[in-house]
Every structure is written in structure tokens, then in C-alpha cells.
């Protein structure tokens, strides 16, 4: 049960959505863009989220795009994770997304919702970080495509009133050999202890990580270490020395244990991807 009432708006276009946000914000309604709604419901009921107006964007056509042509994959931000899994246009994304939450929740959780989530794992972003994707943003200033590395640092740095519309990914990344694994405290349910997505492109291994730090990341230093040409074990150790900080230390696992797990996962990723030939 949400302990507060809110107005509900369902605009047909992005322009309308952006205008509504500004109008409601101006009137002190603390508006919120809304698609799957899982965070509003689960955080709202324990007083960690509040709004007086939600703007439901999940059926705006631009946010529903799913196309692969001209060497580009476009994915709308309000596609649900199950839709992405079932269509399977980006196998690495399918694999990563299919481990988020559980099936019942993934029918609701959207791509954009997960990338912009307040709960910091945001695992759906990992494949896009690896693929140097672009994100399409709309806001009061209009619509623009931005390289994800410019705008995603720990989280998607949207300005007030902006929203994520689509991702654009070059198809060569979609076909690249990949490795993805999610390790939890125990078995198949729960938040990540560590989620790793990796791919190999231009003979280089790329790695993006969630659950190791209180934010998802792809680190240049880690990748330099992993591609430095020594033995796999030495490269993994070198990568561990340049990790971003802090390392998470919480009920899912201690920092030391996470490093133990991460070391093994990186080793597995390298072994798998070294064997691959494009």
C-alpha cells in the first residue's frame, strides 16, 4: 500500500511528457516519470519514494522501438525485460537482463527503468557500457543522442525533466563473443553478489561489473590490465589492483569475499574469451 495519493498522467508523445513534467514540477508535485512502476511501488510503501504526480511513458511510441537495421540496434526504454529476452536481438543483453529480479517482476521492469533505477545494481546497463552505445535523451531542450560514456557515471546523469528514450548500439558489438555471469550469495534468487558482463572486440576484452562497488562500472584501468599480454592469472591480479573503490561490504557478502569471487569470475571470463575467434 502506498501511503500517499498521486495524479496519474499518460501522455501520447515525448513532447507532451516533457511539458507535463515541467508544469507539474513548477506546481510542486514532485513528478516522476513512470514505466514499469516496480520501484515506485516497492520503495513508496516503505517511504523511500514519494511523488504527487506520475507521468506514465510506457506506451509512448518512441520508447517502444525495437529495431535492428542499418547496422544499428535501437531499443526503446520502456520495453520490458521479458520483451527483450523473448526477442533476443542482443544476446549479451538477454543473458544479463534475464538474471535481474524474477520473471514476474521482469514482465513489468523496463530497460530504462532498470538503467535509471535507484537500487544501484542497474545491471541492464552493463552491455551498453561494453558496446559504447549511445543513449537518446529527451528534455526541455529537445531530443539528443549522447555517447553513454559521457552521461553514465555510476548512474545516468539526467537533468531534471529529462528522460531516457532509447539506446543505439552498433551491430558489430551484438555479434561479438561475450561472457556474462551473475553470482549471488546463494543460488538463483537475490541481488548480485557480483554480475560481470564481458565481450571481446578488436582482439581486446572489455568488462563491465555490477555488485562489486555500490555502482555499475566499466573501468579503463581494469581493461588495460586485462589486455596487457601476460598470463591470465597475472592480468587478473593486475586488474584487481586498479579496481574502483569502495568494494561493497554488506549482507550479500563481505568485501574480501567479493574480491575472491571476482578474481575467479575474471579468470573464467578471460579463459572463455581468449579461446574465442571472431
Amino acid at each position: 500500500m502506498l501511503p500517499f495519493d498521486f495524479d496519474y498522467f499518460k501522455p501520447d508523445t515525448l513532447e507532451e511528457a516533457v511539458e507535463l513534467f515541467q508544469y507539474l514540477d513548477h506546481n510542486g508535485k514532485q513528478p516522476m516519470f513512470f514505466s514499469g512502476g516496480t520501484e515506485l511501488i516497492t520503495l513508496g510503501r516503505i517511504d523511500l519514494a514519494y511523488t504527487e504526480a506520475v507521468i506514465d511513458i510506457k506506451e509512448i511510441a518512441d520508447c517502444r522501438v525495437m529495431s535492428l537495421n542499418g547496422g544499428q540496434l535501437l531499443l526503446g526504454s520502456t520495453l520490458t525485460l521479458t520483451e527483450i529476452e523473448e526477442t533476443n536481438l542482443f544476446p549479451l543483453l538477454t543473458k544479463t537482463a534475464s538474471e535481474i529480479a524474477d520473471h514476474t517482476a521482469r514482465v513489468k521492469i523496463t530497460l530504462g527503468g532498470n538503467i535509471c533505477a535507484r537500487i544501484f545494481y542497474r545491471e541492464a546497463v552493463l552491455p551498453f557500457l561494453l558496446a559504447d552505445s549511445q543513449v537518446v535523451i529527451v528534455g526541455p531542450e529537445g531530443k539528443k543522442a549522447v555517447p553513454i560514456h559521457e552521461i553514465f557515471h555510476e548512474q545516468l546523469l539526467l537533468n531534471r525533466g529529462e528522460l531516457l528514450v532509447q539506446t543505439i548500439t552498433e551491430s558489430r558489438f551484438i555479434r561479438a563473443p561475450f561472457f556474462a555471469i551473475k553470482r549471488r550469495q546463494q543460488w538463483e534468487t537475490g541481488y548480485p553478489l557480483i554480475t560481470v558482463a564481458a565481450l571481446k572486440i578488436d582482439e581486446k576484452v572489455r568488462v563491465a561489473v555490477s555488485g562489486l562497488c555500490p555502482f555499475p562500472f566499466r573501468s579503463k584501468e581494469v581493461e588495460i590490465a586485462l589486455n596487457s599480454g601476460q598470463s591470465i592469472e597475472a592480468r587478473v591480479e593486475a586488474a584487481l589492483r586498479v579496481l574502483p573503490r569502495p568494494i561493497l561490504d554488506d549482507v550479500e557478502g563481505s568485501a574480501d569475499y567479493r574480491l575472491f569471487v571476482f578474481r575467479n569470475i575474471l579468470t573464467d571470463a578471460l579463459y572463455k574469451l581468449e579461446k574465442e575467434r571472431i
Partner: protein
Amino acid sequence: MDVIGKSVIRKDALDKVTGRAMYTDDYQTVHMLSGKIVISPYGHARIVSIDTQEAWKVPGVRAIIAGKHFPLVGESIRDRPPIAVDKVRYHGEPVALVVADTPAQAKQAADLIQVQYELLPVVNSPTQAFEKNAPLVHERLGEYEKEEDSHPVPGTNIATHIKIRKGNMELGWRESETIVEASFSFAPSDHAAMETRCAIAEIEPDGTVQIMTSSQAPFMVKQLLSDYFNIELGKIIVRTPLVGGAYGGKASVQLEVLAYLASKEVGGRPVKILNTREEDILTSPCHIGLDATVKLGADRQGKLKAAEIIFLWDGGAYSDKAIDVTRAGAVDCTGPYRVDNVWCDSYCMYTNHPYAAPFRGFSHSELSFAIERTMDLLAQKLNMDPLELRYINAIMPGDTTPTRVLLNKSNVGNLQKCIEKVRELIKWDEGAISRVNDRLIRVKGVSCSWKTSTIDANAPSGAILTFNRDGSINLMAGVIEIGTGTKTVLAQILAERLKMDVNKIHVRMEVDTQTTPQHWKTVASRGTFMSGRAVLNAAEDVIVQLKEIASCVLRAPKEDLEIANSRVFLRDDPSIGLDFKDISFGYKYPNGNSVGGQIIGRGHYVLRHISNLDPETGEGRPGPEWTVAAYGVEVEFDLRDYTYQLLTAATVVDCGRVMNQKMAEGQVMGAMSMGLAFASRETFYFDKLGRVLNPQLRTYRPLRYGENPRYLVGFVETPQIDGPYGARGLGEHGVMGMPGALGNALSIAAGVSLHHLPLIPELIWRAKEAANGAPL
């Protein structure tokens, strides 16, 4: 025998699978108000001030209760204020209660109540609680009202102390060539029933208190409300519809008290309090934690000679049912083995943790982890097969229990047969360890358990049978349908006794304490046994009455009459007889004259020969019989990552008699699932302030479908002579051996002795690191 043992479909099945079934929260009336609890965010703190000013401004608020002294409550010791005053003793403790027109208003107001706390030193484990100079959870322990057999020690955190002194310890150790000693611990956890607890209270103008509650113990609710608030027993009516899982957690009486106080505050209007999941985990009582030390001695052949055991139970902030759990743990402290020399100290400790309710197995899954891990350590030291060690020490008729009850062929099951059967089920003889590849090995672990049900010496059960005009029968019994299917088994028992179609027996699912005959509590795997006996007793009563009227109409002596297929007839000529429908409301002769009248059957049962324990030696008869069981678990273990998969879990239980094959298997499988979840994942994580860091199902995760192993269930049938058709308790036993068997499998697999729960890969990694880094 037609009905007993058959997989009769549960009488509540259709309503449950179609979603029609009603639980407490589904009952709503127009003028019902909503109660919302404000809970303590700390484990131990002084309440400096409570500001309700802003909360009162929320529209719809009818009452705010805070800082008020009510009579102290609690089952064995009256140590708990229903709503905290002066200080809070656990994270989740109620500090205020808001009553408003709607749940949303109540929550809004509750969120606006400002409570200022001053932190106090926290008692964060039972071992810490036991230390000299530990902070006191209860400063005035000596002043509380209590039951005679609770033994709190004022000036300490000891809520009770149960002693077992059997045999001669000196002799025992002298006869022991091999001795092992080890310590074990795990934190409290949760029951995680699907239905969160809910209670509704209304006080009618004439003072009648109407309660509806999701409880395993509506008759206890009635009794306790009467005791606590001095209400006439006959003026309390407690109703319990279907209950959506309980596992012991709903045997405690808590929300009923709060709902009653809330209703009283608003002039008697009905008030509903429904736990959120977080409240159900934090505020309502939890699954007990334990710190244990076990020392076992055996002779050269592996025969156990001595056992010295210390249990420090984590009773939490209030003793309530933890006192009884502490006693039950002492009573069966050795596990199902013959040990002639036993010394056990079982302490119920106060800590600043959520307080404990019973949990399926009532101390036995907990103590079994400590005992069964130590048994494996002993087997290792003796260089013996762990299953063989258990086999040669298995408790048998002629042995005595730790409280010196002499066992016979009826009051204990056949453990050796259970062990033999589990040995086959898990293919033990093919080897405990097999290698899959460089990294993966498959390992089996085993364990055993036993349990008697330590329940009140005069615990009653009753049953009433009435007829419908078509000759079908209505069965009313006080057992709560908590999901175990007991009410269906009762119908089977009645059908069997009356040799009639079970579909012509209608079972009332809901219990109300005004019209349903009293059943003590639906706990301790006693439903089928006690209520089954009451139903058989009622069946006899009905048979006598049916035969009486038939004998008159048929002009034949009662001794010549037989009952079957809803008919009373002549034994030597079944064609001469009368259908139930023609006599159950009296018999009407063709000319209109009538004889007899409505037949109402009544039956009752009370446990016999239960006695209190001697406070110095523990001697006494705590329960009616011991059900025994043997278990095996097989895992596939990754030697590099310390991760593992559950492959197989097996339980063989001597249930006396299988009453309903599918339901019995379902009970045992469900219990195994619960035991494995407790063993491998479920726990509360506490911080230094005594806060539970994972009070949500996001972070507190029971076993999900698909994570389960393959379940194997076997039964041994050694009848309990006084049980209904020989049946013994069954509902809890699947849980009890899982932590021990899993712990044993993983200890073998990892090559390191594991002493804590839950058995997550990180715990194994930590134990390996400690072992690798340990100085030689």
C-alpha cells in the same frame, strides 16, 4: 481399511486453488478501522520522548496509543509491555499504535510520530548475554509474574535454566576412549509464512470481545486475553478462518492484544491490524537462534557413553514461548541415541533481538544441527562410517530418554529401520563422495532426529459430529487448518471408523472458540493424534446412538447391528437395516409416530501421564511418544568457488501409520524445503545496534521453487498403539535433520568442519581461509 492411507484430496483444495479461500485479512466491514504500529528502529534504547502532535493532524485518525502502561504480557513470564514504555528492547518493537479510518491514514499518521531515543548498550548474542557484566535486557526480572516452571535468574539475562542430570558423568567419561567437543551457533531467522499475521478485535456494548485472528492457538488467545485484562472467559470469542502457513510463528499471541487495546481505545469499534512483511519479520516473534557446545564420549566400539551439552538459546527481548523451546531442547538434547550419562544445561537467554516464537520442530532442527555435526566429528575421529555410528547408537525400546522415560515398542519409533531405508534411498553404499571432474564433487551427508511433543499435561482436544437430513455428517474440531490438511485426515479417520464415504463428511474449516470444541493449539505435530482420538471418541458416541434407535425400530439387540455405508443393518442379514438419513433425526413410523431425535456425537481426548520435569534433574515424562527419522542430503560442490547445488534430500520417518499418502509426502517435502532454507540461506543479519539488516523478502530469501533438490520420502510404520490407527506426529520431522545432514555433507566436501548457519558459500570460504591460515 478403505480410507486410511489413501490420497484423499484435501477438503480445502478447491477453494485454495481457485482463490476463493478466505483468510483473516479478507474479512472487512464498513465500520472497521485500521491499526498501524510504529516500531523501534534500534535494538536497545531509552525512549526519551514521543511526539504525536503532527500525527493527530492527519484526517481520519481516531486514536494514538503511546507511552501508556498496560498490564505486562507473556506466556511463561509476564515480561513484555504490549507497547513499549520507557525503553525498547528489540528492533521492531511496537512503540506506538495509531488507529485511523483507513490503512493509508493510519500509516501516514504513524510515519509522522517522532520518537527520540537514547541508545543503550546492545546484547547481540546469547553468549554475550551469558557473560558476567553483560548489559541487562530486563533490570527488574525478579519482579515479573511467572509460571511455576520458569526459572529466571534476577540480575542476569537468564530467562530460564533447564537441567538434565542423568547417570554418572564421571563413569561416562571414564568409559569413553574417544571424546569430541565442538561449538555451534546461528542467529535468529524468520518463519516467512505466505500470509502475514493479522488480527481484528471488536468490543461489543455488552463487553463481549470478538477477535478474528490468523492464529494456531485461538483458544490460547481467549485464555490469555482473559488472564491479561481480566475479561470473563465466556465473553471472549475468537474466530480463526483458514491460516496461510504458520510454522509455529502463529502460536504466539501478540497482534490480538494490540488489536484489543486499539479497539478499546476507540469505544469498541472493530480494528484490524495487518502486518506488513517487514513487521511480520521484525515485530512479530521470530525463529529462535542458538549457541551450543556439545561434548560426546564413546567407547572403542563407538557406543556413546557420555554427553555434556550447553544450549544458550537466543530467546530475544522477551521470553514468551522461548522458555518452552528451551525446555523442549533439553528434553531431547542427545538426539535419538542411547546415552546413559547425560549432563545438559539449557538456558533461555534474553538478548536485544526480536523475540522467539516456536518454529516447526520446536528446538529440534536447531539442536540437531549441533548434535549431528558432533556425531560426524565423532565418526571421523573413530574412523567409522557415520551412518553406522548412528545405527549402533540408535535409541530403542528398553532405553531411557534424557529425562529418564523408559521407552517401549509403542512410544518410540524404529530408528534402525529408518536408517536402513535412508541408506537405500540415498544409495549410501555406493559411497559418500564421487568426483565429477577437476572442480566438482558429489558428497552425501546424513543425520537423524527424534522428537517428542512437550505440551501441557492437560492439553485437551474435542470433536462434535452433527447430521444433515441426507445422512451426511458435519465434523467440527478445534484444529486450525494451517495448510497441513489435518481436517481432511480427521474426515478420513471418521470415514474409516464409520465405514462410510469420506465425501459424505463435511468438515468445518473455520474455528470459533464459542461453538467449536476446544483443541489446545494446532502445534507440535499433535493435530492428527489428539484431534484424531477425539474424533474416534465422537464416532463411538454416534455409533451407540445410531444403534440404539435402530435396535428399537428393527426390533433387534444392538449387539446384532453393524454400521457401514451410511447404514445400520443386521450383521447376519444386511438387507434388513436403516439408512442414516432415516434415523439421524429420529425415526418416523408410517403412521407418523416418531421416536428418537437429532443425533449429536461428542468426543474428547486428553493426553495421559504427562508430568512436570524435576527442576534439579529434569526427570519426568514430557510428552507422549517419540517420532524418529533419518535423513540424507547430496550436494554437488565446487572445490574452487565453494558454491554448491542441492541434488537430493531424503527423509525417512517412522510415522506409525501413513494416514494420507500424498499429504504425508507433501508434509515431509515441505518440511525438508524449509529445513534446507534455514540451513543454507535464511538468517537475520544484525548490526552493532541490534538492527536486522534484511527485514524484507528482497534480502531475506526462503527457498524458491526451482532451487529445490529432488526430494525422496520414505516411511516406516511402527504403530503407536494409542494413536489413531497407529499414527504418530509427522508435520515437523522433515525439517529437523536437514541442517545437520547438509552441514555434514558440506563439511566432508570442503574438508573443513562447519559450525555455523546458514551454509552459504561465503561461510565455507571463510572456514577454509581460517583453516589455511591457521598456524600449525
